[in-house]
């Protein structure tokens, strides 16, 4: 029974994913393919639309997919403009702070990376104009992909400060989303999700508070005090400051489950911002099959510093 509920939830999630921000020619072509196998769409001006589909790099054409570069639908500048205009609800100014940070997020939590010409003023990026490339990442719910981590948390009878490690596109956010749902369902109280890019839109629950589109400075300094969470879920620790915020939060008794970009454990421990002893559990992902596949789980005591 539970299996069918999960399948139904998964199918509903895929069906509800809305691609109506695309121009009609792209929307119609995407309608011809199985979105479940689609992970990435890249739009580059005057180049064929490129897809990562079922772990293959393919091109989009009117009938769906093609391997031939010359048969792909060519993306025009006006197509990119239309996508941005639609995603921003016809109000680009309202999303400028996101554009400056290099991304936009649709209502369904589809993250769109943007690249173009940065406009500087007083050594600060004011906006990005003439956007020439879009990287559209299709989120997937992979039910139970966090089960191995969750089992460890149950076995240890406490929440361990956990860091999920992988290169981009391996499913760190997918894993975090599933973990939030599991924690919520298991009645872990006061879970605060720091959702910097609006990617956790589909994640909600009676124990979950979400702050969207904020930076970590605000989230860790203000929201942590105002919301008094017991567990904080945050994506992509990048800078030294991010690690320091996490350290302060852990020292305040809050449990942190976070993710960071790195290919291996050595790569993360060799990073200049890495703080030793902060996390109790390290989870390394691989790219076999679906996103969120766990390659390795390492406890703090087993960690060998390179």
């Amino acid at each position: 029974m539970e299996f069918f509920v999960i399948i139904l939830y998964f199918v509903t999630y895929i069906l509800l994913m809305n691609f109506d921000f695309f121009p009609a020619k792209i929307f119609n072509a995407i309608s011809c393919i199985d979105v479940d196998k689609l992970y990435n769409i890249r739009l580059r001006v005057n180049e064929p639309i490129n897809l990562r589909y079922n772990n293959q790099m393919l091109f989009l054409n009117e009938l769906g997919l093609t391997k031939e570069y010359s048969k792909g639908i060519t993306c025009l500048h006006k197509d990119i403009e239309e996508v941005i205009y639609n995603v921003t609800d016809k109000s680009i100014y309202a999303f400028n702070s996101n554009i400056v940070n290099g991304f936009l997020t649709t209502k369904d939590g589809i993250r769109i990376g943007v690249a173009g010409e940065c406009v500087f003023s007083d050594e600060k990026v004011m906006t990005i104009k003439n956007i020439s490339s879009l990287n559209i990442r299709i989120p997937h719910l992979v039910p139970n992909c966090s089960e191995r981590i969750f089992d460890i948390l149950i076995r240890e009878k406490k929440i361990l400060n956990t860091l999920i490690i992988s290169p981009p596109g391996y499913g760190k956010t997918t894993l975090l989303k599933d973990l939030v749902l599991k924690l919520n369902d298991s009645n872990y109280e006061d879970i605060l999700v720091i959702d910097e890019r609006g990617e956790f839109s589909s994640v909600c629950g009676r124990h979950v508070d979400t702050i969207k589109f904020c930076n970590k400075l605000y989230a860790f300094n203000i929201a942590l005090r105002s919301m008094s969470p017991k567990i904080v879920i945050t994506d992509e620790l990048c800078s030294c400051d991010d690690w320091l915020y996490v350290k302060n939060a852990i020292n305040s008794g809050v449990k942190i489950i976070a993710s960071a970009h790195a290919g291996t454990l050595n790569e993360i421990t060799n990073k200049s911002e890495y703080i030793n002893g902060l996390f109790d559990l390290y989870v390394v992902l691989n790219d076999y099959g679906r996103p969120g596949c766990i390659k390795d789980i390492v406890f703090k005591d087993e960690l060998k510093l390179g």
Partner: protein
Amino acid sequence: MGKTIVVILTFGLSILISYLLSLKHVKLHNFYLDFFTFNNCYENQLSYSKNTLPSIIEKFNNRDSDFIELLRRYMDNREVLNLSYLKDEDYLLFNEYVSTLGKTDEYSQKQFIQNYKGIISKNLENSEVSKKRYCALYIKLGFFIGLTLVILIL
């Protein structure tokens, strides 16, 4: 009895015609008043709340006005509303305005709003002057023509 009815109808009709003639000036003034108010409202939104255009339109005080309906149709890529009181230059101004609305970052939008503020304000003043002048004129004309016709009938 029949003559009295004809007299009343003639007088009423001339007043009605004069009112209808003055109506286009009233509507033009209302159009620019909404245009001006929307522009100011949008400017505030750019500086503070940064709500999206559809939500600004939805929360606009006079959201059933012709201006808002024109704006809505443009944004939904629907057929343009044909308003008899708007001249080609009014449509041109509106189309230029909406073709840039929402399509750039907040700094460029503020600049764009400032550029249009003067033009919209001037058109609003002109429409107000026209409204005052022509409404009074048409009503007076209607009254006197009606009165003349009544005297002639009597």
